[in-house]
């Protein structure tokens, strides 16, 4: 029924949306969309974890830990994510141990999707560390002193007092970075991770419907990011402290 309508649309206007008329292309696109969503969710969670841990270690009493976190942030904030992905896949991938696959070929232990997840999570994580730091620095000194005077340990203060407050402060900035992360997942295309852009490119190679698929891509990402922004807004509203923090 839907396929008929799009076939008719193609006949009348020349707009060729094979993702609605061709089952192979449709499956390809939906699989791509699924990959983008799972890639986004996994990278998002990992990058938040990296952000929290990094921000915690950044305030560590051990100078070496502080230096390591700082070095990590500098490296990942100053290099383009595409270069990072290529470096991980073609650079690091070449020196990793290999295991034989079903065809007897020695295959690197880490595949393209894993590399994409790792590099995107580290990239977004580096920014998250800085974002969380800004939130932590906004927590009033007096609040921490109050917790200390109540006998809270350092880690208890960080996770139970500072972080919940800091999280509220940095949510808008965090929102920005996570939106960016979802858009950056398209770079996984470069190492053949079959996400949405990769699927779209396969489709237009065959159907030569580049303008149509570009439009579909644009709408798809507007929708994906829209869902994420709405979700973060809800969290923001739910976490809001009546009367503000101070």
């Amino acid at each position, binding site marked *: 029924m839907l396929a008929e309508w799009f076939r008719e649309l193609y006949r009348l206007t020349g707009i060729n949306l094979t993702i609605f008329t061709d089952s*192979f292309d449709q499956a390809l696109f939906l699989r791509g969309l699924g990959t983008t969503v799972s890639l986004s969710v996994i990278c998002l969670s990992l990058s938040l974890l990296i952000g929290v841990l990094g921000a915690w270690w950044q305030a560590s009493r051990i100078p070496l830990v502080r230096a390591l976190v700082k070095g990590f942030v500098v490296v990942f904030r100053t290099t383009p994510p595409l270069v990072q992905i290529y470096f991980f896949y073609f650079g690091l991938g070449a020196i990793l141990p290999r295991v034989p*696959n079903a*065809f007897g*070929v020695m295959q*690197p232990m880490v595949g393209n999707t894993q590399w994409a997840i790792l590099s995107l999570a580290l990239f977004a994580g580096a920014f998250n560390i800085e974002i969380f730091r800004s939130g932590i620095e906004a927590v009033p000194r007096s609040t921490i002193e109050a917790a200390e005077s109540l006998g809270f340990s350092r880690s208890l203060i960080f996770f139970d007092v500072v972080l919940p407050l800091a999280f509220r402060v940095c949510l808008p900035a965090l929102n920005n970075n996570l939106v960016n992360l979802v858009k950056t997942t398209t770079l996984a295309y470069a190492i*053949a991770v079959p996400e949405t852009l990769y699927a779209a490119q396969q489709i237009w*190679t065959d159907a030569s419907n580049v303008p149509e698929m570009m439009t579909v891509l644009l709408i798809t990402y507007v929708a994906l990011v829209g869902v994420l922004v709405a979700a973060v807004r809800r969290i923001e509203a739910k976490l809001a402290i009546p009367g503000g923090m101070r």
Partner: protein
Amino acid sequence: MKKFLMPALAMAVALTAGSVAAKADVLDKVKEKGVLVVGVKTDYKPFGFRSPDGSIIGIEPELAADVAKRLKVKLELVPVISSNRMEFLKQGKIDLMIATMSDKPERREQVQFIEPLYYSDAVNILMSKKVKVTAWKQLKDAPICGSTGTFYNKPVESEYGAKIVAFDGTEKPLAALKQGNCVGFLYDQSLVQAKLTEPEWSADYAMPLPSIMETPWAMAVAKGEDRFAKFMSDVTKDWMKSGAIVALEKKYGIAPTAYSQRMHAQFK
């Protein structure tokens, strides 16, 4: 009616003949100058490439040399690339083009193709020697590197169940193949064979599968050069009869294609 038709026909024939004769015939021009100018590739090993001393060598320059020999004139090779080869022919910068040009309908409109088509590329896989396959069907679920934007990725995936892992260009998929991220590289057979002439690849890789999806290559002359086209057509048939193309493939270290073997058998 007959009485009227015959003279009309005769006149038509005379007119056509006249119009051909009126145009400068490239075959006469070549013989007059004593030089045949042929456009060939210089970046497509082993079909046309530069030898270490800078001269252009390869299968296509050798074919060009044979044409010049038959015409008893000297040969001049002009390097062409895909985007200028038809323009050079149209402008008369070259008399003949032997430059790995695939047969496409829109190209047939612009230049005069020489029939029968002298060569044919196909699609094949540069495969790790560890992979023991003899048929495309055995590639089910095999990770195969590919190049984005090629027309054969989808059919190989949908017909044989291979998992195509496509990168931009040819260097990245070849690097991925070398690192073991895939078991083979799906590409134009001519490139696969060219890679196999390099020791870097021939040690661990081979081309175990029969070629698929033949795409013939055409030599061409300018539109309207019917006499030269006829001459080249006869030369081509003679090459196929004598097996000259198969011999050149062997000389340059590539396995004779199914097409050149078939044509050799057909004209023998």
